[in-house]
């Protein structure tokens, strides 16, 4: 009887091996798939048990905190946003039912205290409970407040603007630190935790959940001429004093192109053309440079891809020449002369135009834009700090200085004359994209930086609509006030 007994034992071992196989399947091999299943509430519950780190602005204003709620010794932490709608964009929200968006999402690993395996084993041995890091953003709450209020009042008081949105972006040129990112209309992230509110906000035609500065693309109008001028000078084919005709009605790509207000000029140089925003001059420049060169420089400025910002991909859009939803490349049939003046099918995000201003301000070097100033772990150790990182060498320092001079003339005697930033010299460029010629509906822009000789802040301001207005008179004053508030 002994042989059968041993065989029965062998069978038992086979059965046990089956158990080992299946246990390793669930615990290791299929573990990630199981964790991702929607039925699995474990990751969500565990996350709520971790005190999430706070978010503070660079000027020390508390933007988001986590408060314990219920459960005595086993509380869950619920997010509170003391500033209400001021930072609804771009900070976003983090709730069990509504989910997680924007900066709350892009900085989640820090906020939730996700660590590498090794650090968490050490923490376990030391029996430290998992805790999130507190982060400080580059955003300046006072300037954000000013920008938002100015945008709101401009929208309310400008004909044709009411019911539509606007956007302000301010970047520190030398570091890429985003100091202001205002998107109007906004929403209060605290409300999102109420049942039904998120659905309502999603249906709202004014799209308050959309973070316009990074997510929406607009015709940039004449602000694009800064890109064209920089490309022209840096390529060596043009000088600030290169003469071209400024006559209105010149044929560009076979179609006559008008100057703003039908103004016409004789032979003018680039400095004059930028100062007075002469379309025909820059359209000819664009045609002479050609699509290849224009696209080369646009690419260096950050066009054709998402901004290199620490922000969720689904909340950013690339700037470039679009055919429907498709980005065109240099090989496609494009009226490059009109691209050079911000027309054709060119669409840009407000942050892209702020990056253009910041690049000129920073001697031609584009710094990666970022929101994260610093992060401190629960013990107060700084675990992450803003380390300025160059994204690309766009143009030479000489070119940047030449463009700066021309942009300074814009604010002194050109389309932005009359605007002031605390009496100091500053650089700017207006833009007025005509989006509905019949009804006189325009899209006003202003990009610039200040002070002109030692730039500390670069901005881009955009209103989605206004009737019969110009960038200099609607967007310009918002930009100068925001810059003034951010200059030390």
């Amino acid at each position: 009887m002994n042989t059968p007994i041993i065989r029965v034992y062998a069978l038992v071992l086979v059965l046990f091996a089956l158990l080992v196989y299946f246990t390793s399947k669930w615990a290791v091999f299929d573990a990630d798939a199981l964790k991702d299943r929607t039925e699995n509430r474990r990751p969500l519950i565990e996350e709520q048990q971790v005190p999430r780190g706070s978010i503070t602005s660079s000027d020390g204003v508390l933007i988001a905190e986590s408060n314990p709620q219920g459960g005595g010794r086993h509380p869950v932490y619920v997010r509170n946003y003391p500033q209400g709608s001021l930072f609804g964009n771009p900070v976003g929200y983090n709730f069990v039912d509504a989910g997680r968006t924007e900066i709350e999402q892009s900085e989640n690993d820090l906020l939730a205290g996700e660590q590498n395996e090794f650090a968490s084993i050490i923490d376990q041995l030391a029996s430290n409970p998992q805790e999130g890091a507190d982060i400080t953003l580059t955003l300046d709450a006072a300037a954000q407040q000013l920008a938002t209020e100015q945008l709101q009042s401009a929208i309310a008081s400008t004909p044709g603007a009411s019911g539509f949105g606007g956007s302000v972006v301010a970047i520190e040129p030398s570091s890429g630190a985003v100091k202001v990112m205002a998107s109007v209309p906004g929403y209060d992230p605290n409300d999102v935790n109420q049942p039904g509110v998120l659905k309502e906000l999603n249906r709202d035609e004014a799209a308050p959940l959309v973070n316009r500065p990074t997510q929406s693309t607009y015709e940039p109008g004449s602000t694009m001429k800064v890109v064209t001028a920089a490309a022209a000078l840096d390529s060596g084919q043009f000088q600030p004093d290169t003469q071209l005709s400024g006559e209105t009605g010149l044929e560009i790509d076979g179609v006559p192109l008008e100057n703003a207000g039908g103004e016409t000029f004789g032979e003018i140089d680039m400095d004059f053309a930028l100062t007075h925003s002469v379309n025909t001059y820059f359209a000819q420049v664009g045609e002479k440079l050609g699509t290849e060169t224009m696209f080369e420089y646009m690419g260096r400025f950050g066009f054709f891809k998402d901004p290199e910002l620490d922000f969720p991909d689904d909340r950013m859009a690339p700037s470039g020449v679009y055919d429907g939803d498709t980005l065109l490349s240099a090989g496609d049939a494009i009226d490059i002369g009109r691209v050079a003046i911000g027309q054709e099918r060119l669409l840009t995000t407000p942050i892209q135009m702020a990056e253009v201003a910041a690049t000129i301000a920073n001697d031609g070097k584009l710094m990666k834009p970022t929101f994260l100033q610093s992060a401190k772990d629960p013990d107060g150790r700084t675990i992450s700090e803003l380390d300025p990182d160059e994204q690309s060498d766009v143009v030479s320092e000489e070119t940047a200085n030449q463009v700066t001079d021309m942009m300074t003339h814009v604010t002194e005697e050109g389309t932005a004359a009359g605007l002031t930033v605390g009496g100091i010299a500053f650089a700017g460029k207006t833009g007025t994209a005509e989006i509905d010629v019949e009804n006189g509906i325009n899209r006003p822009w202003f990009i610039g930086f200040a002070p002109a000789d030692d730039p500390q802040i670069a901005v881009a301001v955009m209103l989605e609509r206004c009737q019969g207005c110009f960038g200099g008179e609607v967007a310009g004053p918002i930009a100068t006030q925001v810059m003034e508030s951010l200059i030390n």
Partner: protein
Amino acid sequence: MSARNRELLALVPVAVVVAAGFAAVFIVKDNEVSDVSLIYAGYFLGLCLAAHIFLRIRLPYADPYLFPLCALLAAVGLVVIYRIDDKLAFDQASVFVLGLILFCLTILFLRDYHVLERYRYLIATAGILLLMAPYITRNPVNGAYLSVDIGPIAFQPAELAKICIVIFLASYLAENREMLSVAARRFMGLTIPPLKHFGPLLVVWGAAMLMLVFIKDLGSSLMFFGAFLALLYVATGRFSYVLIGLVIFFVGAYAIGSSITHVHDRFEIWLDPFGRNAPEGAGQVQQSLFAQADGGLFGQGLGESLLKLPGPFAPNCEQPFPDCGSILPAPHTDFIFAVVTMELGLFGACGLILIYALIAARGFKTAVMAPDGFSKLLATGLTAVFALQAFVIIGGVTKVIPLTGVTLPFVSFGGSSIVANMILLALLLLISDRARRPPSEPIANDPIDLAGLPA
């Protein structure tokens, strides 16, 4: 070294597991568990030592590893239960007192376990009555009839019944194995026993099917029928019987299973626990898999994983944790293996399975060394039913087979399981002591062994 000294040495790891486990849980959950709770560990180790001393006196030649291995399982179980709820650990440690008493009584009164052969029909009847008891008292748990309430205690008679039925089968087959294996015809390459002897086989099959109909539990019937097939194979050496047995079991199980909703649901859940139309109860298996997924290779550590639903997530219910308010249902009984995987990882879980494999090895070794047919069959049957029980519940938790509500031997919380398995262990040790005793050492004259029955 003598067997008993080896046994004492083998208890050292048990002490280490209990001490380290309790210390770990105590540190992690220091604000939840009372200081007194550390005594439970000492309480348990004291009981282990008492059992060891008893074995030293009564069964000096018995297998030295069987008891420490079972104690190791119990130690792991106690630590995990302590992690789930410190009060439950006290209850569990207390149940070991009762288990130990019955363990000792079994060894004292069954000095010559061959006496059991005389009462096999009585024992078989008792076993079947025990199995039917929950059905008679109409007490379904999750749709299956598995327990009887005696006062405040929920007694699971199937735990005891498995021992009764193994004793009966071992005794019956020991007597009839010649007939079953020799007087056979061959048909289509299969050996068919004469109908006269085939009869009892059909009776046992019928009993397993009836169990399925009445107690509605596929796992229990698989466990009983599997042990029966193992015994039949060992007794006759004919694999064809096992094949026939398996075929008729699965045909019967399929026919009955598809018509009994409870069994059918379990089957559906097993096939696809995430199916859109998965029957109610699929959530249990889902939670079991999710808990294991959290384990990874090394686990989250004792007391570190999510079990008790926190704050606002906790449901409103009167029953205390862990009966209610646990994300994993029945973490201390049916799903304790999932807790082990979650907190001790794949390595911990494999360690636990390894202990069962080692116990099976010692049990089957006892069967091989046993001097006579009844002893061999009894040891085989007890070991097989023990190993199969572990397979059925771990298999259910890990979705190898449909989930059924049997306990994980020595690990799960529960009185009847501990008591029954202590008796099972006592019987194995009795057989082992007889098998390993040197011929010169006579068996002590026992007051119960008056009949001097033939082997």
